[in-house]
C-alpha cells in the first residue's frame, strides 16, 4: 500500500468532483455512498500504508511522492508532493478514520436536507484539503490545505446560507482565519529567504546550521507560524470564530471544528518542532497562550445553555491543552491528545447531534432534561465521551491530559512558568469536568423541562448510533496508545519520537539539550502524584455538577443569581466580540468611508474637476475653434504631436 499512499487525498477529491459536477444528475443515495466510500477506501489505504511504514527501519520511515512541479521562480521551487512519514500517517489515519464515521453518520443526520448532495461534496472537499494539509511535503502545499480547510469550513458553517447568522458565522471564520494565515505567509517568507527552500526535509536539515537558538530570526519565524496556528486552532486572540461556527450542521462541527481542522495548528507545531525548539522564547508564548485559552474557554463553557456552544468552548479549551503541551516541548503528548480528543469530542458532537435531531433542532439544554431513558445509546455513548473529556482514569482523555500536565510541570523550557501553567491546567481540568457533567445532567437526567420536546424525542437510527458506538470504543481504549511513558509501552512515543524534535542537530547543542530535557528524565513518583491531584480535581468537578444539576436543580439558579456580575461576564464571553467590533471593525469601516467620501471624492476629484473648470474658462477664449467633441481634440492632439515631432526631428537636432 505504501506506493499508493498518495491516492488517499485524491480519492475524496474525486468524490467532490463527481458529486459537485454531477450535482443535478447524481441520485441522492449514490452521492452519499460515494462520499463515504472515497473516505473509507482512503482509510484502508492509510492503514495499509501505515503497517508498511512500520515494517521499515526507523530511519527509512519517510516516503515522498512528487505529483508534478508547481511553482518555479528563480531560486524558488515548490512541488505538489505528498509525504508519508510517522506524523502524517497518524494524522491521515485520524482524518480518514474519524472522517469516515462522520460521513456515515451524516447520511442519517442530513437525510432530509434539500442540500444533501452539496453537503457531501463539501465534506469530501474538506477531507481532501485536510489530507493535503497533513501530507504535504512542503510548507506551501501545507498552506494550500490550510486555506482549503478554511474555505470548506466557511462553506459548511454557512451551509444554510439563507440564515443570516450562518452566513455571518462563516464569513467571520474565514476572515479571522485569514488574519492567522497572514502570519503563516510571513513565516514562510522568512523561512524561504533564510533557508532557500520551503520543502520540509531541506528546511529542517538546514535550519540548525543557519539559526542560532534563541535568536531573533527563529523566534520571529515561529511566532509568525504561531499566529497562523492561533487562527486555525481558535486560540487567544483569534478564538472568537469557533463558537459561532456552531451554526453549521452538527456533523460538520464534529469533523471540522473538533476532530480535524482545528487541530491543524498543533500539527504545524509538531511538524516544525525542530524550528520551535530553536526558539525557546516562542515556546513559552505558545504554552502561556495555550494555558490561558484552556482556562478562559472552560470558564465560558460553565454557563452556556446551547449544548453545541458548551462543546465548542470545550474544544477551544482542549486545544489550549495541546498548545500547552507543544509549548512545553512535549510535541508527542500534544499529538496524543489530538488523537484522543478527536475520538471523544467527535463522539460528543455527534451525540449532541443525535439529541438535537431528536429534539427537532432545539439546542437549548434548558428545554431538555430526562432524555436519557428515551435515547439510551446516545446517553451511554455521550457519557463515555464526557468521562473521557473529564479525564476519568482509563478513559482516553485521562492518559493524554495527564501526560500534558506532567510535561508542563517538569518542562525545563518553561522554567518557572511550568508550575504556574500546571496549576492553570489542573484548574481547567476541574472546570472541564464540571461543565461537561452539567451538560450531561441537563440533557439526559432530571425532569423533562419541555414536555412537547420530550414527548417527540426518540433514539436515532443505526446509521447514526453505530458511529457513536465505534467512537465510544475509541474514547475508552484510545488512551492505551499512550499509557505512561515509564512503562516503555507508550506506542505514541515510540512511533512519533523520531520525527518530532530536533533533526540533523548541528551546533544547536543547546536546543538539543532542551529537547532532551523536555522529553526525558521521568520522575514516576511525581507523575503519579500529579495524576492523583488532577484526577481528584476532576472528581470534585463531577461530584459538584451531579450535586447541583441532578440532585438540587434549584441550587444552580441560586448560585447564578448570587454571582450575577461574574455570571453575566461569562455569559457574554468576556465581551471579546464586542471589544473587537468597537476596536477593529468599526474604525476600519469608518476609515474606509473617510478615504472614499473625503479623500477620493473631495480632495482628488476636487482637484481634477477644479483643473477642468479652470481649463474650460481658458478654453472659452478659444471658442471659435472649440468643437465640443473630445475625439476631435484627440485627433488634433495626435496630428499636432506628429507635426511637432516632425519639426523637432528635422529642425531640432544640431
Amino acid at each position, binding site marked *: 500500500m505504501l506506493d499508493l499512499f498518495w491516492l488517499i487525498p485524491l480519492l475524496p477529491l474525486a468524490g467532490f468532483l463527481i458529486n459537485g459536477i454531477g450535482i443535478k444528475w447524481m441520485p441522492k443515495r449514490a452521492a452519499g455512498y460515494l462520499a463515504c466510500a472515497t473516505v473509507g477506501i482512503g482509510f484502508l489505504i492509510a492503514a495499509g500504508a501505515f503497517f508498511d511504514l512500520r515494517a521499515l527501519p526507523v530511519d527509512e520511515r519517510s516516503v515522498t511522492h512528487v505529483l508534478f512541479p508547481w511553482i*518555479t521562480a*528563480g531560486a524558488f521551487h515548490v512541488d505538489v508532493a505528498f509525504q508519508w512519514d510517522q506524523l502524517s500517517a497518524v494524522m491521515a489515519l485520524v482524518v480518514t478514520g474519524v472522517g469516515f464515521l462522520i460521513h456515515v453518520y451524516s447520511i442519517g443526520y442530513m437525510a432530509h436536507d434539500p442540500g444533501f448532495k452539496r453537503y457531501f461534496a463539501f465534506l469530501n472537499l474538506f477531507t481532501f484539503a485536510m489530507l493535503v494539509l497533513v501530507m504535504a511535503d512542503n510548507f506551501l502545499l501545507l498552506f494550500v490545505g490550510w*486555506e482549503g480547510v478554511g474555505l470548506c469550513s466557511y462553506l459548511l458553517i*454557512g451551509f444554510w446560507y439563507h440564515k443570516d447568522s450562518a*452566513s455571518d458565522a462563516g464569513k467571520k471564520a474565514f476572515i479571522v482565519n485569514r488574519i492567522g494565515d497572514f502570519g503563516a505567509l510571513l513565516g514562510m517568507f522568512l523561512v524561504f529567504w533564510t533557508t532557500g527552500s520551503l520543502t520540509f526535509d531541506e528546511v529542517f536539515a538546514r535550519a540548525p546550521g543557519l539559526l542560532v537558538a534563541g535568536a*531573533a*530570526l527563529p523566534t520571529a519565524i515561529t511566532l509568525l507560524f504561531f499566529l497562523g496556528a492561533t487562527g486555525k486552532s481558535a486560540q487567544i486572540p483569534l478564538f472568537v470564530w469557533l463558537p459561532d461556527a456552531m451554526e453549521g450542521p452538527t456533523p460538520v462541527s464534529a469533523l471540522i471544528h473538533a476532530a480535524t481542522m482545528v487541530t491543524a495548528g498543533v500539527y504545524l507545531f509538531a511538524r516544525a518542532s525542530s524550528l520551535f525548539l530553536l526558539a525557546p522564547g516562542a515556546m513559552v508564548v505558545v504554552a502561556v497562550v495555550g494555558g490561558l485559552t484552556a482556562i478562559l474557554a472552560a470558564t465560558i463553557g460553565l454557563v452556556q445553555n446551547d449544548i453545541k456552544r458548551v462543546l465548542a468552548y470545550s474544544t477551544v479549551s482542549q486545544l489550549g491543552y495541546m498548545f500547552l503541551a507543544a509549548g512545553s516541548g512535549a510535541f508527542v503528548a500534544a499529538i496524543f491528545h489530538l488523537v484522543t480528543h478527536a475520538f471523544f469530542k467527535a463522539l460528543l458532537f455527534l451525540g449532541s447531534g443525535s439529541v438535537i435531531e431528536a429534539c427537532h433542532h432545539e439546542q437549548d439544554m434548558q428545554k431538555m432534561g430526562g432524555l436519557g431513558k428515551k435515547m439510551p445509546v446516545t446517553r451511554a455513548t455521550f457519557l463515555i465521551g464526557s468521562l473521557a473529556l473529564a479525564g476519568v482514569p482509563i478513559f482516553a482523555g485521562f492518559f493524554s491530559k495527564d501526560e500534558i500536565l506532567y510535561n508542563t510541570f517538569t518542562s525545563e523550557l518553561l522554567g518557572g512558568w511550568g508550575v504556574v501553567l500546571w496549576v492553570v491546567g489542573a484548574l481547567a481540568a476541574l472546570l472541564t469536568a464540571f461543565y461537561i457533567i452539567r451538560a450531561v445532567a441537563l440533557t439526559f437526567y432530571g425532569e423533562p423541562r419541555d414536555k412537547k420536546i420530550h414527548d417527540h424525542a426518540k433514539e436515532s437510527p443505526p446509521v447514526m448510533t453505530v458511529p457513536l458506538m465505534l467512537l465510544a470504543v475509541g474514547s475508552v481504549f484510545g488512551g492505551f496508545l499512550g499509557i505512561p511513558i515509564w512503562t516503555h509501552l507508550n506506542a505514541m512515543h515510540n512511533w512519533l519520537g523520531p520525527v518530532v524534535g530536533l533533526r540533523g542537530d548541528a551546533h544547536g547543542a543547546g536546543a538539543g539539550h532542551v529537547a532532551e530535557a523536555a522529553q526525558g528524565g521521568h520522575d514516576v513518583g511525581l507523575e503519579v502524584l500529579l495524576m492523583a491531584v488532577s484526577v481528584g480535581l476532576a472528581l470534585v468537578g463531577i461530584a459538584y455538577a451531579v450535586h447541583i444539576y441532578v440532585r438540587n436543580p434549584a441550587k444552580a439558579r441560586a448560585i447564578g443569581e448570587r454571582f450575577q456580575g461574574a455570571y453575566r461576564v461569562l455569559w457574554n464571553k468576556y465581551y471579546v466580540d464586542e471589544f473587537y467590533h468597537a476596536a477593529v471593525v468599526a474604525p476600519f469601516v469608518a476609515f474606509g468611508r473617510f*478615504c472614499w467620501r473625503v479623500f477620493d471624492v473631495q480632495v482628488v476629484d476636487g482637484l481634477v474637476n477644479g483643473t477642468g473648470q479652470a481649463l474650460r474658462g481658458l478654453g472659452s477664449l478659444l471658442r471659435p475653434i472649440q468643437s465640443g467633441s473630445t475625439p476631435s481634440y484627440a485627433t488634433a492632439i495626435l496630428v499636432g504631436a506628429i507635426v511637432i515631432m*516632425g519639426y523637432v526631428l528635422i529642425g531640432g*537636432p544640431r
Partner: protein
Amino acid sequence: MPVLTLVTFLPLVGALVIWLLPMDSRGHRATALATVVVTFLVSLQLWFGFDRSLHTMQFVENLAWIPGFGVSYHLGVDGISVLLVLLSTFLGITAVLSSFSAVENRTRSYYAFLLVLQTGMTGVFVSIDLFLFYVFWEAMLIPMYFLIGVWGGERRLYAAVKFFLYTMVGSLLMLVALIYLVIEHYNQTGTLSFDLLEVYGTDLDRTEQLWLFAAYALAFAIKVPLFPFHTWLPDAHVEAPTAGSIILAGVLLKMGTYGYVRFCLPLFPEATVAAVPVIAVLSLIGIIYGALVAMVQPDLKKLVAYSSVSHLGFVMLGVFALNLQGLQGGMLQMINHGISTGALFLLVGMVYERRHTRLIEQFGGLTKVMPAFAVCFMIITLSSIGLPGTNGFVGEFLVLLGAFGANKFYGVLASTGVILAAVYMLWMFQRVMFGTIRHKENESLKDLNLREWITVAPLLALVFWIGIYPKPFLDTMDASLVHVLEQVGAEAPAIEYDIRGGDEEHAHLGIDAPGPEAETAPIEDADTGGGDDVSAPLDPEPTTDAGEETE
C-alpha cells in the same frame, strides 16, 4: 504567415466589414463574434509556437514605414508581451459574447468600436517601434471614449471625458519623453531610429534618466492606475457597458504595468532603482487604500473597480521588487487580474441585465434562484481573494515573496491586503448571494443561460489551470524577465543558505556539530535575513550562488 499583423489587424478588418453592413442588420454581432474567434485562433500560434527558452523578440515583422524619421513597422513579442496579447484576444471573445443581449441600440457602431479597440490594445503590446507604439496607445483611447460615452450609464459623459483627459495628460508627457529619448539616441549614434531595441542602448546620465523615468512613469501610473491617480477608474467602470469594463480592467490597465516593464525598467535602470521607494509606497497605499474603499462601496461595479486599484498595487509592487519572484508574480498577476476581474465584471453585468441595478442592497439571497451563477461567482470571488488552487494565489504569493525579499517592510504591509481582500469580497458576496430574498423582483431571476455559460466557463477553466499548474505560464515569461533584470542590473536578494555555500557544505554542517565549521556563525539578527547589501560570504572560498537568479 505574419501572425502578429493578422492578430492585430483582423479585428480592424472585422470592424470595417461591420460598418459596411446596414444599420439594422442582425449580422453585426455575428460578424464581431466570428472576427474575435478567428483572431483568437490565429493568436494561439503565439502560445504553441513560442520558444520559451529565448528572451528575444519572436514572430518579428520589420518593415520600413517612414524611413526619413527612422520609423518602422516593427512588431514582435517576447515573454513579457506574449501572454498579454493572448489575454487581449481571449477577453475579446468574452467582451463580444457579454454584449449579445446587453447592447441593443446602435449595434453597428458598438461592435465596430469594440473591434477597433482590440486592434489598438493588441498593437500596443506587439509594437517594438516607439512611434508605432504611441500611435496605438493614443488610437485606442478613441473607441474606448465612445464606448463609455455612448453606451454607458447615466453619467457617461462625465466619466468619458474624465477618462480621456486623465490619460491624455499622461500620454503627452510620455510623448515628450519619447521624443527626447529618440533625439538623444540620434545625438549619440547618428542614427535616427524609433526602434525600441536600438534605443535600449542609449546612454543616459542619472538626471536625464530621472526626468524621463518620471514622464513615462506618470503616464503609466495613470493608466495602471497607481494611487493617487486612480479616481478616473471607478467612474469609467461604473458608467462603461459590461464589455467596456471587461476590456478596461482586463487589458487596458495592463498597458500601464506593461509599460513599466517594457520601457521604464530597461531604459532607465538607475532611475528605476532610485524610484523603488516611491513606487513601492504608492503601491502599498494603493493595496490598502483600494481595499478599504472597496469595502464600503454600495455599488457592485465600484467595489470591483476599487478592488482593481488594490490588485494593481500588488502587480506594481511585484514589478518593483526587482527580483525574479516579484517580477514573475507581478506579470502573472497581470494575467490573473485580467481573468478574475474581467470575470467579475462579466458576472456583475449578468445580474445588472436582469435587475438593472448594481446596488448591493438591492440583492440578497440570489443563491436560491441562481445556483449555477452562485457557483461561478464564488469561484471568481475566491480567485480574486487569492485562495490557493486558484490563479490569484500563485501570482499574489510570488509578488509577496519577492516584495518580502526586497524589503521586509513592503512584504508585511502588502500581506495585510490578503486579509482585507477577504473582508470586502466575502462581505459583498454574502450581501448579494446569501440570506433570504428581500426584494420581490429577485424571486424570478433566471439562472445562467447557455450563452452565459459559454462566456464564463473558459474563465473558470483558466482560474484553475493557472492555480494548479502555472508552469507553462511562468516558463513563458521566465527568460524575458531574467533578461529585464539583467538590463536593470538589480541584484537578487540574498538567501542566507546560499551565502553560506550551498548543499554539500551544509549537509556536512548538519551532521557533525563540533569542528572548524563553528566559525561560520549563524545569523543572529532577523534584519540581515534578506537585506539589499549582502554581507561578504563567510566561508573561505567565495561563492556566487547568491546572484544565480539573474543569470
